[in-house]
């Protein structure tokens, strides 16, 4: 990964409440996914899990600036987006266990999560498939004269899809309040961006459509927070779409726990100690040094999150499975 071209941001002013909120969101993703990873080999979660470990700062930092009425659209790597936007942890874990109590009642699985009330509008596992949905929702907000914003999370691989270019064109043309959040972790499955693209600076794609954009260090939660504030505010104030490219490290393999084949597809420099920067560690160090939060407050957040994760797994494991007799339910909405 390279930080080349990453825009610098002054450290944002964080209140204690905001810092605690941000940390809670990141930790929730981290701890939930570590638990998923731990229990996954038991083969009780029978759905492919794309872990966002390492990428927590982007989900959390962007959603910190969103209201309930703002819409988030996402992709196969959706747990972080869902949790950061306020989706129920219990319902997420129940969905991974394919239970009737899951957020999609066991019909969607890990790649199709939704938390309508919290403003996560559904994720598509067709790479870039949700990009036009975000533009459509933003277009509707504009027609309805709502002050809401649509945010679409997409990967570097998704930036290769034609529909993303079409969506940018539409967004710029109609000047709708949408933010495309590119999570550039440099990999599509195990294929490095260098074998897929001539230009790995994905924020430049927005230039063709006169959409403002920047590239940001996505492992730095403070930069994420500050940049997302700008991008979301731009869209919300009626100035049209924004594209943010976050440069990130995906800690695990594409799908499933661990990264057993890392040596076979990652570059040696990447494998050296230090390629795993930890956004949460960086954030905790910052808030402690800056005196925003105290050790004890952080410990409290941490144990509360652990408790919720524990509870969510118990809830999921004890939830009923969908009945085979209900197979045909939900093909259509009434």
């Amino acid at each position, binding site marked *: 990964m390279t930080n080349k071209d990453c825009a610098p941001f002054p450290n944002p002013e964080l209140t204690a409440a905001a810092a605690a909120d941000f940390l809670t969101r990141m930790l929730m993703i981290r701890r939930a996914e570590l638990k998923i990873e731990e229990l996954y080999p038991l083969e009780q979660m029978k759905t492919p899990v794309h872990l966002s470990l390492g990428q927590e700062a982007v989900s959390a930092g962007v959603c910190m600036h969103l209201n309930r009425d703002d*819409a988030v*659209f996402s992709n196969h790597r959706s747990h972080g987006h869902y949790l950061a936007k306020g989706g129920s942890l219990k319902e997420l874990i129940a969905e991974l266990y394919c239970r009737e109590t899951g957020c*999609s*009642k066991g*019909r*969607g699985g890990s790649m*199709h999560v*939704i938390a*309508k009330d919290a403003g996560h*509008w*559904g994720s*598509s596992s*067709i790479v870039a*498939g*949700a*990009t*036009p*949905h*975000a*533009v*459509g*929702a*933003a*277009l*509707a*907000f504009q*027609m*309805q004269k709502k002050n809401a914003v*649509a945010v679409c999370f997409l990967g570097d691989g998704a930036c290769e899809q*034609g*529909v993303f270019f*079409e*969506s940018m*064109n*539409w967004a710029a*043309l109609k000047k709708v309040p949408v933010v495309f959040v590119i999570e550039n972790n440099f990999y599509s499955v195990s294929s490095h961006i260098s074998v897929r693209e001539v230009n790995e600076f994905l924020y430049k794609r927005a230039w063709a459509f006169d959409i403002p954009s920047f590239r940001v260090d996505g492992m730095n939660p403070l930069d994420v927070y500050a940049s997302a504030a700008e991008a979301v505010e731009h869209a919300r104030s009626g100035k049209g779409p924004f594209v943010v490219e976050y440069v990130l490290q995906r800690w695990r393999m594409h799908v499933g726990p661990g990264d057993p084949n890392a040596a076979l597809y990652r570059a040696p420099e990447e494998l050296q100690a230090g390629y795993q920067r930890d956004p949460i560690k960086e954030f905790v160090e910052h808030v402690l040094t800056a005196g925003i939060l105290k050790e004890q407050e952080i410990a409290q957040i941490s144990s509360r999150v652990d408790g919720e994760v524990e509870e969510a797994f118990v809830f999921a494991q004890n939830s009923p499975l969908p009945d085979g007799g209900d197979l045909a*339910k*939900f*093909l*259509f*909405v*009434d």
Partner: protein
Amino acid sequence: MPWTKLQVEREEPAFDENAGDNVRKLDFGTALLEAQDQALARDPRVFVMGQGVNDPNGAFGTTNALYKKYGLERVFDTPLNEESTIGIALGAAMAGMRPVVVHNRPDFLLMAMDQIVNHAAKWSYMFAGQVPLPVVIRSCVGRGWGSAAQHSQTVHGLFHHVPGLKIVLPSTAYDAKGLLISSIADNNPVLFFEQRWLYKHQSHVPEYVYAVPFGQAAVKRKGKDVTVVAVSHMVIESLRAADELAAEGIDVEVIDPRTIRPLDIETILASVRKTGRLVVADLAWTTGGFAAEVVAVVTERAFHGLKCAPRRVAFPDLPTPAGYTLEQAFYPGAKDIKKAVLEMVRPSEKV
């Protein structure tokens, strides 16, 4: 497109469903215009978009009057971005709008296959019915004047295979209006396939807003000898064939399902149990198409009611040719339906 208009004027004699009745009549295109006009007037969530919807031609005259009345915010042109346009309609529907997307050719819908098949059709099921997607996708089949392989396809069969979509194929102006109203009122994605050759046909179209329900076939003509199930323009061809066959003493029942998903199979089965003979006239390829499906279901469920093997009258398994002599050989019509019926009813005679 002006040349297909020319072709329609020249080749297709106008068809009047209720000739002579003292009632208001509209042609097919105007009926569609009226349906959209009334939907826009009564529901602020409805909007119409598509390539050229407000150009002077305005989707064959079915939309251009609308933007003048409702403004460019509710009736507007789109970029040549078929895939994202459908995706944008879906996103807007998720946000509570009721978009009508107009594609001037079904061929171009294939650019949006991903949004239609992977997204629209799956959204309700995948998210356990939490998200209504009231999106109508109109497209109009071209035919003749050398439109050829990429501008004359009928693709309802491709989408018919996919659960989660509603598929509408109106054949009359009355149904065009009532079915479009139903489509806009529906909370699920609807593919609405028009036929350019139907545009100048007219029928009685009431002025008020009415809905023709999905999944209810229309028995266009009662008969006891043979059941002909036909969609879209093939309904007209079947009625023509039935007229000619009546002159020969053969009594044909013509059924227009009007929607192929949902399909009113019960009306078809009841008819076949009565006549014992089935011809399905489709406006699409023979293999794996709607006609094949009807034949399969009838064979499964009314096998013992059949007096002879069912027949499909549909396109040959070939791309549409440009040349007019080849086009003539390509498109089945009344004479092919008539031939199929005669071969069933009088198998010993060579037709």
